[in-house]
C-alpha cells in the first residue's frame, strides 16, 4: 500500500495561475502503466500531457473541463486499488476540506434519482442543460446549477458533479446540443474575457481613427531601428508614451465613482504569436529612448516566446498599444483592458496610399471624443515628422534592381531612375543598366 505518484498542476507559464484539465483519460481506480498519458492540461493555446511515471492505480482529484490552481494535486497513483477514493473533487478549493468531504460522501454515495427544486428546473431548462450532469446528487437547487455552470462565482462547499460544458461567466445563452457543437473556452480565453469585460461591458466606449502619412517614414527611422525595420511600433510606443504625460486621462481608469490617474506611464503592447494573447509592459516608457524601447520590445518578445515572462512584465500597464499591422488590416476597433481608459490600435500601412490608420478606443467615463481626437492628431503629426521630406532618400539604400549597385556607389552624377521592374514592382535602375555603358 503506497502512494506512488502525485500529479500537481504544473506552472507552465507565469501568468497561468490556473490550468484547465481537458482530459481525464481513465476512470478512477483504473490500472495504468508507466508512460500512459493519464491527464491533459490546457495552457494558453497548447496542451500539456501528464504521463504516469509508474505502474499503479489512478485516482483523479479533478474533473475534465474545470480549472485548478497551480500546485493543486489533481491525481494520484496508488499501488493498490483499495486506496483509491472513487469521487472527484471540486476545482479551486482547499484540498484537505475536499478530501474530508470526499470521504464523507463516499459513505453516502447517492445512487438514487435526483430531486430538483422548481428554480433549479427552470434554470436547467433555460440553459438547456443535460440533467445527467447531476447524476450522483440527491437534491439539486438553483445554486447547484449555477455552481455547475460557473455562474455567480458562489463559493461552493459541495462536491460538484462532472460538468459537461462550461460557459463564460454571466454569458447565459441557450445551448441546443442538437444544433450546435460546443467547444469549451480555454482558461486563457476566459481570462481574456474577464480582462476586457469591466470597461467594455458598460458600453460607454468609443473609437476614433486617424490616418498617418507614412510616405518616406522609414527613410530615417530604419537607420535608428536595430531589429524592427519597417515597423511603426517602436516609434509609436515612444511617441505615445511621451504624449500620455500630456493626456493623463488616457493614462488612468474609471474606478466606479472616480478616475484614477497613473503616476507613471507604462505602455503595454499586445502580442499573440502562438503563446496566447498577452500584453507586455515597458515600464516607465515616457523616460525611455527609442532605442531603449526597441530593446525592451525585443527582450519582452523573447521572454514571451521562451515562456520566461515575469509577473512584473504583465502588470501595472497604464495604456495599451495593439499592433495588427502585420495582419494587413485597414482599421479596427481595439478593446480596452481593465484598469485602462484607452487603447491604441495600429493597422497595416497601405503601401499604395502610403498611410496607416491609428485607432484609439477610449472610456467615455474618463475622457471624451474631442480630447482623444486631439491626442490622436498630435500623435499622427509627431509620427509624420519622421518622414523624409523632399524625398531625400538615403543613397545607400537605393539599389539598382538590375545590378544591385547602390546609389552611393554610383560614380556618375545623374542618379538612378525610378522604374517599374519586369515583375511589375517599383524599383530603381542605374544609368549604366538603363542606357548601357
Amino acid at each position: 500500500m503506497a502512494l506512488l505518484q502525485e500529479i500537481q498542476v504544473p506552472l507552465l507559464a507565469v501568468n497561468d495561475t490556473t490550468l484547465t484539465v481537458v482530459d481525464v483519460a481513465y476512470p478512477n481506480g483504473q490500472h495504468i502503466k508507466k508512460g500512459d498519458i493519464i491527464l491533459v492540461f490546457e495552457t494558453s493555446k497548447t496542451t500539456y500531457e501528464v504521463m504516469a511515471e509508474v505502474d499503479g492505480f489512478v485516482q483523479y482529484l479533478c474533473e475534465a473541463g474545470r480549472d485548478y490552481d497551480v500546485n493543486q494535486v489533481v491525481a494520484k497513483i496508488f499501488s493498490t486499488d483499495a486506496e483509491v477514493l472513487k469521487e472527484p473533487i471540486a476545482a479551486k478549493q482547499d484540498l484537505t476540506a475536499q478530501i474530508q468531504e470526499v470521504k464523507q460522501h463516499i459513505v453516502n454515495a447517492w445512487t438514487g434519482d435526483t430531486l430538483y427544486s422548481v428554480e433549479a428546473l427552470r434554470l436547467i431548462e433555460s440553459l438547456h442543460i443535460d440533467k445527467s450532469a447531476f447524476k450522483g446528487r440527491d437534491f439539486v437547487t438553483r445554486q447547484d446549477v449555477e455552481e455547475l455552470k460557473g455562474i455567480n462565482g458562489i463559493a461552493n462547499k459541495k462536491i460538484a458533479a462532472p460538468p459537461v460544458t462550461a460557459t463564460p461567466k454571466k454569458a447565459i445563452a441557450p445551448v441546443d446540443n442538437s444544433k450546435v457543437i460546443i467547444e469549451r473556452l480555454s482558461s486563457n480565453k476566459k481570462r481574456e474575457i474577464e480582462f476586457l469585460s469591466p470597461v467594455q461591458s458598460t458600453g460607454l466606449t468609443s473609437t476614433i481613427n486617424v490616418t498617418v502619412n507614412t510616405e518616406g517614414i522609414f527613410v530615417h527611422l530604419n537607420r535608428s531601428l536595430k531589429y524592427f525595420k519597417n515597423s511603426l511600433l517602436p516609434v509609436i510606443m515612444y511617441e505615445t508614451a511621451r504624449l500620455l504625460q500630456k493626456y493623463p486621462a488616457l493614462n488612468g481608469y474609471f474606478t466606479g465613482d472616480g478616475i484614477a490617474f497613473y503616476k507613471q506611464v507604462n505602455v503595454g503592447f499586445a502580442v499573440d504569436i502562438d503563446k496566447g494573447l498577452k500584453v507586455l509592459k515597458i515600464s516607465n516608457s515616457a523616460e525611455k529612448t527609442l532605442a531603449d524601447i526597441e530593446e525592451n520590445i525585443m527582450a519582452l518578445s523573447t521572454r514571451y516566446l521562451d515562456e520566461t515572462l515575469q509577473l512584473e512584465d504583465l502588470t501595472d500597464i497604464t495604456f495599451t498599444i495593439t499592433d495588427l499591422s502585420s495582419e494587413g488590416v485597414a482599421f479596427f476597433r481595439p478593446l480596452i483592458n481593465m484598469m485602462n481608459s484607452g487603447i491604441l490600435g495600429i493597422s497595416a500601412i497601405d503601401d499604395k496610399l502610403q498611410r496607416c490608420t491609428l485607432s484609439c478606443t477610449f472610456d467615455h467615463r474618463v475622457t471624451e471624443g474631442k480630447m482623444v481626437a486631439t491626442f490622436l492628431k498630435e500623435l499622427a503629426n509627431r509620427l509624420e515628422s519622421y518622414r523624409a521630406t523632399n524625398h531625400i532618400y538615403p543613397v545607400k539604400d537605393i539599389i539598382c534592381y538590375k545590378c544591385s549597385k547602390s546609389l552611393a556607389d554610383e560614380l556618375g552624377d545623374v542618379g538612378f531612375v525610378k522604374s517599374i521592374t519586369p515583375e511589375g514592382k517599383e524599383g530603381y535602375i542605374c544609368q549604366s543598366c538603363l542606357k548601357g555603358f
Partner: protein
Amino acid sequence: MQSVSKTISHRIIKEAIRIRRVEEKFLELFSSGKLNGTVHTCVGQEFSAVAFAGQLKKKDFIFSNHRCHGHYIAFTGDIRGLLAELLGKASGVSGGIGSSQHLCNKNFYSNGIQGGIVPVAAGYALGNKLRGDDSIGIVFIGDGTLGEGALYETMNIISKWEIPLLIVCENNLYAQSTPQHINLAGDIVSRATAFGIETFEGDTWDPEFLINKAQGAIDYVRSSKKPGFFLVNTYRLNAHSKGDDDRAKEEVESYRNKDFLNIFSKESADYYNRYLEAINREIDELVDEILLESELPFENYYQHKEIVSDNNWSALESINKRQVELLNKFFRDKIVADDRTVFLGEDILSPYGGAFKVTKELSVLRPERVFSTPISESAITGISNGLALNGFKPLGEIMFGDFMTLAFDQIVNHASKFHHMFNKKINCPVVIRTPMGGRRGYGPTHSQTLDKFLVGIDNVKTVALNTFFDPAIIYESIFCEEHPVLVIENKTDYGKRILSNKHSHFLYERNDDAYPVARVRPAVSDPTITIVAYGGMADEMLSMLEAIFMETDLKPELIVPSLISQLPIDIITESAMATGRLLVIEEGSGYAGIGSELLASVAERVEGPIKMKRIAAYPVPIPAVKSLEHAVLPEKQRIVKEIKEIFG
C-alpha cells in the same frame, strides 16, 4: 369564667402548651427580626392539632395547610426541626427552603396553597389503600378553604372510591380577614354529607370530648377504609398571620376567656407554671443553639447543568403500527409488570378505553389500577401527585390538552415544587399525559396547543411524542424519572403509523438521549436550512420536506426534539450554524412560545449571523370549520411562502 375538665390527661395539656409556646416564640423572634417571611399561629386551636395529629399512628400521614405548626408538633414532636426551619437554618425540617408553610417530615407535608393539598392527600391515601395496609391520612383545611373547588372534586372521589382520608376542617370563623357570614353559604357539615361522607363534629373548648371524638373518627376511617369529615369549631386568638387583625376586641376577648389553656393557667396555676417553665427552658435552649447554626449553601440547593445532547445517531425504521397501538401495548405491559403503575383519567375504563383509546383494556388487565375519574382535572392531577409522593407511578390522563389549565395548580404549585421546597427529601415522579393539537375540527376549546404554558415549569419535564419512533422509547425513560413529566401526545398522531412515509432522498435518524432527538436530512447533500418542529407539527413537516425543497430551493434538515422543556440547543445551534438558516414551527401561537425560547437560546450561543424565523398558529382560538382551522394552524402554503420571503 367557666371551669375546665379535670379529667383530661396532663400529657395532652403539656403538648398544647408546648405548641402555644413555640408559636409565641415565633412571634417574639419575628418582632426581634430573627425570623424571615411569615407565620400563621394556631394559638387557641392547639387541641385540634393534639386531638388529630396527636392520635395518629406513625405509619399514618398528614397533609396540612398554612396554619400547620401545631399539627406538625403534635404529629412529629420535632420542635427543633421546626424552630430551625423557621429560623432559616440548614438543619430545619425543609432546610430553610420551605419555612412555616412548607414542612415535610415523617409522613407530614404542608403546603400554602389552599385546597390543593386535599387531592394530594387523597392520592397518598389511595396509595396506602392500593398497598393494602391499614394506614390512614388526615388533611387539615380551614373553613375559608371550603370555597376551593379542588376540595369538592376530591370529596366526591374519596367517597366514591372509598379512600381512607379524614378531612379535618378547622372552623375558626374567618378566612384571613373575612368573617364567615360573608363568604360561606349554606351549611358546612351537610357539604360532606351530600357526598356520602361520614361526618363528625367537635370543638377545642372541650378538648376531652374532641379528643375522644377524633379518635372515633380516626378509628372509623381506619376500620371502614372510607373517608370522614370532621368539623372542628374553634377560634384563633392571634392575628391571621402577624399583626393583621381587624376583628372586634370584645369578640376576641370573649374567646380568650373561653380558651382552655387560659382557664387552666388560672385554675391550675401551679401545674401550668411548672409546665410552662420547663417548656420555655427547652425552647430557649434550642433557639440559642439554632441561632448559631449556618444556612444552606446555595450550591446544595441549585447547580446549573449545561445541556449536552447525545451525538450518536442511528437510523430510524418504519413501524407498521399506529402510534396508539404502540402506546397501548406499552401500557399493557407496564400495568402488568410494574407494580407502581396506576392509570387515572376520564372515561379510561374499557370497553371505552379513553377518548383516544390509549388505555384500552388496561382495566381488564388490572382493574384495581385503572381509575375512571369524574370530570375533575384538578383532582386527577392532585391524586396522581399524592400517589407519586407515595411511591407509585401514576399516569393521569387529561382528556384534551386544553383542559390542562384545570390541572395547572397541581402541576405548578405542587408537583413542580415538592422536591425543592421540601429540600429534596421527596420526589414526585408523577406523569400527566394529554393530547394536544388541532386538525380534527374539534373547535376552540378542544384543539389548542398549550405547550408553551407547560415548558417553563421548573423541575417538570415536558415531553412531546412524535411519529418518528416508537413512543415506548420515551415512556420507558419516563418510567425511570424521579420527577414530574408532562407528556404531550397528539390527536392526529395517534392514528398514524411510525415513519410511514420515508422518502428515499432523506436520512432518518435519532440520537441516544433518554428523550431522543430525531432528525431528517438530505441523503447526501449538506442541508441549507434547519427546521425545528416537534410533536404533531413534526409529522406535518415530515410530509412537507420534499415540497419545501422543491418550492423554496432550500435543502431542509428537520430536527425533532422530544424533550421540549429542555431543547437540544447544542444540536440545533450546530445545524443552524452550518446552514445559516433556522426556522422553528409550532402549532401553538407564537408570542412567548417555544420558538421564541429556542431562537433566544440559539442566539445566545451562535457566532456569526443566522437568519431566524418562527412560524406558529395565529393568535386566535382554533376554528372548528375546516378551512379556517387550516388557515390558523401552520400549513404548507404559508410555511413555503414564509420560507421564501424570509430565507429566499
